[in-house]
């Protein structure tokens, strides 16, 4: 699916090129191809960690199955164990752990070439009144 159709984000802040729902309202995965001119890359050629987390948050939004935007409420116990560089395909996946009303907790991962480079908890808040 086109992430544009499921997220309010637009270029250059949409972090995903592709997205796929693995399990409706529970789990999704997506990808981003990193080219050398990509604005998410730091001068050393690695993708900024903040943008990797944002990509994990965006796939979480799709995993929730909720329509409309959400606020990025918290990062929980998220750690990095690798980098993503120009030429790599960043894969992100997220699973809903739990929600209470509009507040959702996810476990998310970022993967490059089969290796997990980041993993941890993401919390998003969807406005229930919207």
């Amino acid at each position, binding site marked *: 699916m086109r992430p544009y159709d499921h997220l309010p984000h637009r270029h250059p802040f949409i972090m995903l090129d592709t997205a796929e729902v693995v399990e409706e309202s529970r789990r999704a995965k997506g990808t981003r191809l990193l080219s050398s001119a990509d604005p998410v890359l730091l001068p050393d050629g690695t993708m900024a960690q903040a943008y990797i987390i944002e990509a994990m948050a965006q796939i979480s939004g799709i995993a929730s199955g909720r329509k409309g935007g959400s606020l990025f409420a918290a990062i929980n116990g998220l750690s990095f164990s690798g980098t993503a560089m120009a030429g790599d395909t960043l894969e992100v996946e997220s699973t809903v752990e739990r929600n209470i009303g509009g*507040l959702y907790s996810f476990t998310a991962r970022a993967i490059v070439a089969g290796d997990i480079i980041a993993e941890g908890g993401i919390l998003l*808040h969807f406005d229930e009144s919207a």
Partner: protein
Amino acid sequence: MDKDTLVEELKALIIKNLKLEDIAPADIDAAAALFGGGLGLDSIDALELVVGLEKTYGIRIPDEDVGKEAFASVNALADYVLKNKK
């Protein structure tokens, strides 16, 4: 498990799950409001606690209304866990 033991366990779980490093179990008044009170907990903490409690005790807190009742105080939480744990 008797309620006093559970109350102490819950205080330790709250401190650990919410990383309240400056707070000792003795600082938590079991009868005081958990949210909007002295601990300064918010809705994000509530979700963290729900996940922690469900994993630890196999209970289910299905919605916000039940959550409000269960999270009224540590005592109320202990009653809820005793009534619902598997």
